[in-house]
């Protein structure tokens, strides 16, 4: 039942409807229903029929839409730049033009680069739209360019995505909140202030805590999750890997708390390692050998009963001394006794030992649980990590350490443990679609079956296993060279400093199509990003004239998520949808208000552009591929289809002729229950996961050889390690006597990166929160430096980049840390409500090779800084230098 409208008198109501749709404020795409009275949007709620959100919605979703739809500062008409000089202080000289003129201009430019070399086109997409199947990557494929910039790429999963692929066979991971009893969270707001499936996992996390799940939060800041934790472990930023290694040491070497049965049968722990860290292999089949204890001989891994395979010991095969891979892991962990980790992390050794021990004991190794009549392994513990912990240029080895804590206890894809985000989908019962099941790959290891399949980003997010060979780069993000990377800021680096040539790439980026990503504010050091944008002809589809649009040549007014049509099909299920028991759902994002002004749905714009560029056959082919369209729904290559017609085909293709666009427009969501074997993949599938990535050092050597050939000497490949570990991140190495603090970034529940700061409702929440718009500093540290609560201060990096804001003193932050929420501090005069709110963190991040982990192409997302009071006259302006 719907509540009566409180406002207009009843006689004046001609229309009062609830329209089901999907939120588009962040990438989680929670189900919403939107109330419209006489054409005006009056309320957005969670859709109780959609398991994505389960009928409740976070503050961003509750308040993000209405002010966005009606913001008078939104773009309404196409604009053309008349001042071709670009810079922060240059007036672009915008003039309004018609759509026809805009499309003519854009077509001409695109035709020119397509004639020369289509790879000169780079595209970028607002991350908030990234997990819905958007047309821009398909357009790029049709155009013939592999080049993209992932907006906020360095705030993305990188190492976690690759490791989730190797361990769970899918893009991301979540905790089995229904059954987990002990959770350790490293640098993530899961179920508290951020992370995937946020609206759903907050409900599940609260239920789990009430049920008695112990929560340990490892975080430099007393963040919402630390606030709710049974135990908060304030850690020095960038050292989470060292803590995890010490815990592994306690489990593997001090207490012998590990799941030997799982390690023998479910991982490659027993594979014998010989010279140079390589497996010894069967000569005939090439399969890795394990030591068969009863026969006292080495035999192929799949010919030996797991219980008979040696997990420890030293053996000889031929003339080669060999040891099971597990021994290498044990030895690596020995490098991190808790006493050493205590010095690195600032967490006492006794605490590390106790937490590791509690965690290991809570895993109940050997126990089972009966669900739906089936006895399944029961490991009710999990560790999970995200950007705070792995947003550093030691991401690869550190992330392995944090992930491996689950592996050694067998707490992976079983009840109670860490679950892949839906690694198995057997499909809607009537059609069997969508469908993916991890496959058995080489060496018996799991192979993700639907790895980014629906994202149209196949080439850049290649399957984690088997590992693709690195090759001389032809792409601006260098993901052909850095074959385990995930995309992000590298295209910007190459463009800003004309580095393409250095890597032997025979072309330079020349045109950027940017669908709503505010790159200047979201990709690290803004001056570097600006240098890149100055070199490009920028076509910007946008909601606002934001700081990035300031560098555009043509700006096209775009529909917001409440004004556009998108089928929510495919990839979201493997990336942002709730894992664990429950239901599947695919659904629709649909217009609830007509397009104001001259705004257009970006999908329609791209189809129109494709037609003008005569690449429509390629776009249709890409849509057939990404949406898996089969007859009779397949698109004819030459034909131009209206976007709603394409959406209708997509829905019918997956869910049958009765479930077309009309059905989804009315009902919003199609949901069906998950099966047990979809939720807990491991007991039902015969695959192994790696504890030792034998191929990784080799990958590093091959990458190094390619770099040597190119004469590139400044990119270290030492990080290509096959075992977990830890090394200092760039900020830790840069810290010195004067720059003695680390600036870190965190996320509040009511803002999404930089993209919600124009929203006055969400901004108002920040204004009444003590911390969100300020720079949080440890009270004792601030007092030592003569800084008082409310002082205006500068935070300045080693390189002299600095940002200004108000100090907020707290006993809830590590003494060596200053913490800044989200990316505030907008300066565009066309976003008056965003302007000057919050602090612009990204300016502090160095955007360079030195602070990039080439393995997973992640940037160090903290910075060594000093702080000092701002002078009285230093007010206004941009708030950063």
């Amino acid at each position, binding site marked *: 039942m719907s509540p*009566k409208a409180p*406002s207009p008198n009843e006689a004046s109501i001609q229309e009062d409807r609830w329209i089901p749709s999907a939120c588009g404020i962040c990438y989680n795409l929670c189900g919403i229903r939107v109330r419209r009275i006489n054409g005006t949007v009056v309320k957005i709620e969670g859709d109780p029929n959609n398991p994505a959100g389960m009928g*409740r919605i976070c503050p961003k979703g509750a308040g993000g839409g209405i002010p966005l739809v009606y913001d008078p*500062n939104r773009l309404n008409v196409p604009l053309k730049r008349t001042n071709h000089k670009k810079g922060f202080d240059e007036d672009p000289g915008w003039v309004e033009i018609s759509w026809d003129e805009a499309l003519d201009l854009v077509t001409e430019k695109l035709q020119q680069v397509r004639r020369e070399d289509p790879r000169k086109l780079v595209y970028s997409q607002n991350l908030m739209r990234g997990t819905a199947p958007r047309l821009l990557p398909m357009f790029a494929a049709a155009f013939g360019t592999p080049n993209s910039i992932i907006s906020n790429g360095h705030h993305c999963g990188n190492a976690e995505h690759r490791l989730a692929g190797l361990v769970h066979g899918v893009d991301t991971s979540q905790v089995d909140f229904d059954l987990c009893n002990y959770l350790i969270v490293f640098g993530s707001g899961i179920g508290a202030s951020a992370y995937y499936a946020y*609206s759903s996992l907050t*409900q599940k996390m*609260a239920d789990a805590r009430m049920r008695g799940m112990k929560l340990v939060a490892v975080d430099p800041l*007393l963040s919402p999750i630390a606030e709710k934790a049974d135990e908060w472990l304030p850690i020095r930023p960038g050292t989470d890997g060292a803590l995890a290694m010490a815990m592994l040491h306690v489990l593997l070497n001090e207490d012998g708390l590990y799941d030997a049965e799982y390690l023998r049968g479910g991982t490659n722990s027993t594979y014998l390692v010989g010279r140079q860290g390589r497996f010894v292999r069967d000569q005939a089949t090439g399969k890795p050998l394990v030591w068969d204890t009863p026969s006292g001989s080495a035999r192929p891994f799949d010919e030996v009963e797991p219980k008979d395979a040696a997990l420890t010991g030293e053996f000889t095969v031929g003339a080669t001394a060999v040891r099971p891979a597990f021994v290498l892991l044990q030895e690596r962990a020995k490098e991190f006794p808790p006493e050493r980790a205590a010095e690195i992390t600032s967490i006492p050794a006794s605490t590390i030992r106790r937490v590791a021990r509690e965690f290991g004991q809570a895993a109940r190794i050997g126990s089972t649980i009966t669900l739906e009549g089936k006895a399944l392994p029961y490991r009710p513990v999990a560790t999970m990590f995200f950007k705070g912990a792995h947003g550093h240029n030691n991401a690869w080895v550190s992330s392995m350490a944090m992930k491996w804590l689950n592996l050694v206890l067998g707490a992976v894809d079983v009840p109670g443990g860490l679950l892949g985000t839906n690694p198995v989908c057997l499909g809607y019962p009537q059609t069997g679609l969508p469908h993916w099941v991890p496959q058995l790959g080489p060496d018996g290891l799991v192979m993700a079956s639907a790895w980014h399949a629906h994202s149209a980003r196949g080439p850049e997010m290649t399957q984690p296993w088997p590992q693709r060979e690195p090759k001389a780069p032809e792409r601006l993000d260098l993901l052909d060279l850095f074959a385990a990377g995930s995309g992000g800021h590298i295209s910007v680096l190459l463009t800003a400093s004309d580095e393409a040539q250095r890597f032997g790439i025979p072309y330079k980026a020349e045109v950027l199509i940017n669908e709503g990503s505010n790159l200047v504010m979201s990709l690290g050091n803004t001056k570097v990003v600006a240098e890149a944008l100055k070199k490009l002809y920028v076509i910007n589809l946008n909601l606002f004239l934001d700081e990035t649009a300031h560098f555009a040549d043509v700006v096209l007014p775009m529909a917001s998520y409440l004004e556009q049509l998108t089928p929510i099909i495919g990839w979201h299920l493997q990336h942002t949808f709730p894992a664990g028991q429950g239901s599947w759902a695919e659904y629709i994002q649909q217009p609830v208000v007509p397009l104001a002004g001259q705004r257009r749905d970006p999908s329609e714009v791209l189809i129109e552009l494709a037609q003008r560029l005569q690449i429509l056959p390629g776009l249709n082919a890409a849509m057939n591929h990404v949406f898996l369209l089969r007859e009779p729904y397949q698109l004819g290559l030459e034909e131009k289809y209206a976007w709603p017609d394409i959406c209708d085909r997509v829905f019918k293709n997956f869910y049958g002729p009765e479930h077309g666009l009309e059905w989804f427009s009315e009902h919003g969501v199609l949901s069906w229950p998950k099966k047990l074997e979809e939720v807990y993949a491991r007991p039902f599938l015969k695959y192994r996961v790696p504890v030792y990535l034998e191929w990784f050092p080799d990958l590093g050597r091959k990458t190094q050889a390619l770099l040597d050939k190119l004469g590139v000497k400044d990119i270290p490949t030492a990080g290509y390690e096959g075992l977990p570990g830890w090394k200092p991140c760039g900020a830790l190495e840069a810290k010195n006597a004067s720059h003695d603090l680390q600036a870190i970034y965190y996320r509040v529940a009511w803002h999404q990166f930089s993209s919600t700061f124009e929203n006055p409702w969400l901004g108002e929440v920040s204004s009444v929160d003590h911390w969100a718009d300020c720079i949080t500093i440890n009270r004792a540290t601030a007092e030592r430096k003569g800084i008082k609560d409310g002082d205006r201060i500068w935070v300045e990096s080693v390189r002299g980049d600095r940002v200004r804001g108000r100090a907020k003193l707290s006993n809830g932050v590590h003494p060596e840390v200053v913490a800044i929420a989200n990316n505030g501090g907008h300066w565009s005069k066309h976003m008056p409500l965003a302007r000057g709110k919050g602090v612009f963190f990204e300016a502090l991040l160095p955007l360079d090779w030195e602070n990039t982990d080439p393995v997973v192409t992640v940037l160090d997302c903290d910075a060594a800084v000093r702080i000092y009071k701002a002078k009285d006259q230093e007010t206004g302006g941009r708030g950063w230098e």
Partner: protein
Amino acid sequence: MRYGMVIDLKRCVGCNACTVICKAENGTPPGILWARVLKLESGDYPARRVSLPVLCMHCQDPPCQKACPTGATVKRPDGIVYVDTAKCVGCRYCMMTCPFQARYFNDAVRGYFPGQGLTPYEVLKYQDHPAGVVTKCHFCKHRVDQGLQPACVANCMAKARYFGDLDDSNSEVSQIIRTRRGYQLHADLGTDPSVYYLPP
């Protein structure tokens, strides 16, 4: 019959979804937050913090009602305390007597986009927010009268809010107050709030 709310501080994650969903439901003007979340930090480093969501406590002996010279503050038989804006003259005595700072004065019709007029949403919603009167949470009485929960209860992601009849000893709110030792804020002031809290 006495409507009351229970807020579980152990469940609450301080996300402010209540603050925002209240605004979306009731269309309150800028600066007026019928629901909001206080953050209380205590202790030396490493400190602890508690998120404390607050709203009108719907006191059963409401000092605001006694202070009101025009009878604009009304306590319904079901315990909901609301402001009848037609009777309010904006004297703000009630604001001075409220121990919970739950009341706001709407001094002028003002939208969220200063100098740019009212949005269609604001035009519609501000029919309920005339200028010159005092305003506060009314437990979403328009929803409650239709059998729905207040917006902040229905939407709370951490499921930290319960709503029901405090007079019924078998109701969920009564039971949970008993079993979890629920308490009122400033019970010592004797206003008998209808909002209870469960310890963190």
